[in-house]
């Protein structure tokens, strides 16, 4: 397939992501409005950041008037999972992919675009695919934020509530099929869910922020699986769609 073809396919697969982003960013826009951030500032933040947890946390920092260093550390902790994703993606790029292309491709490392990029399963990823999805998803995310900040109170609660699970639905569609094929992946998924549930419920552990929990559990569970069940050559090349 040509680069333009990959870009178009990415745009098509990016449509559900854009819709989900729109829904989530409406609630983000409402939160920003309450924190005294204008619709323009909110739109700018969404356009340049594209990270739900990071922006929700950032909004709290702005509302509290904490320092810029606090903001930087907060974003570093909450978004550190992108570091892991980016490492994983680095192994799926052809070595010939140029630096400018890598710099652009870095923009697309969000939970959902990462998810659909990984789900493609080819030996090497075509960055144009992810960029196509980004080209659709980023406007959805930005527009939703502005809509939320301007007219968040007008949308019926029921609609906002239903749209809130769109992104989770997509994430589930990414990790369930490989778990069905590979017992070890299924085990890591189940362990991840059980432990993250415990982290959310248990008295001391529940004080740990969600961003830190995600990194901690990912490193521990994926690390244990890597030591106990190292992958063979075939999985390393065909990334098991």
């Amino acid at each position, binding site marked *: 397939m040509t680069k333009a073809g990959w870009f178009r396919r990415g745009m098509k697969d990016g449509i559900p992501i854009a819709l989900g982003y729109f829904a989530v960013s409406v609630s983000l826009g409402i939160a920003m409005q309450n924190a005294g*951030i204008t619709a323009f500032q909110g739109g*700018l933040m969404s356009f340049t*950041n594209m990270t739900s947890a990071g922006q929700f946390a*950032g909004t709290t920092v*702005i509302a509290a*008037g904490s*320092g*810029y260093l606090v903001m*930087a550390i907060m*974003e*570093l902790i909450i*978004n550190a999972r*992108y*570091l*892991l994703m*980016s*490492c*994983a*993606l*680095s192994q799926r790029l052809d*070595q010939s992919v140029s*630096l400018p292309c890598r*710099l652009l491709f*870095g923009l697309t*490392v969000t*939970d959902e675009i*990462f*998810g659909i990029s990984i789900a493609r399963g080819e030996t090497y990823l075509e960055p144009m695919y992810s960029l196509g999805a980004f080209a659709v998803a980023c406007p959805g995310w930005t527009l939703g934020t502005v809509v939320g900040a301007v007219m968040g109170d007008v949308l019926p*609660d*029921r*609609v906002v*509530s239903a749209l*809130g*699970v*769109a*992104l*989770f*639905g*997509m*994430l*589930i*569609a990414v*990790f*369930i*099929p490989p778990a*069905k094929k590979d017992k070890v*992946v299924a085990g890591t*998924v189940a362990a*991840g*869910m059980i432990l*993250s549930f415990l982290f959310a419920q248990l008295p001391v552990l529940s004080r740990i922020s969600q961003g830190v929990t995600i990194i901690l*559990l*990912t490193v521990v*569970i994926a*690390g244990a699986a*890597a*030591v106990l069940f*190292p992958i063979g050559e075939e*999985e*390393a090349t065909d990334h098991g769609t």
Partner: protein
Amino acid sequence: MEHNVYLYIGVMALVTYLIRVLPLTLIRREIRNRTIRSFLYYVPYVTLAVMTFPAILHATGTFWSGLAALIVAVIAALRGLSLLQVALAACSVVFLLELVLL
């Protein structure tokens, strides 16, 4: 001390972008170590699972509609439906259930 919102946004954007782009630009070779390769192979699935549960239970108006969305989405995904179909199934079940419950 008065803080500038635009400067806050700049700090957020810079930190977040560096996290995303540094591994992609610095790791140019194929990693040969089998344990690291295996680790990176498992990372995406664990991360996505941890992010989804239990957060999905608090994403909607009530716990029950979130749980229903989780169950419906897992079944739809097991049957091989597409990303969009799974997402729509989850949204629909929440909307319909909350018509009854709330």
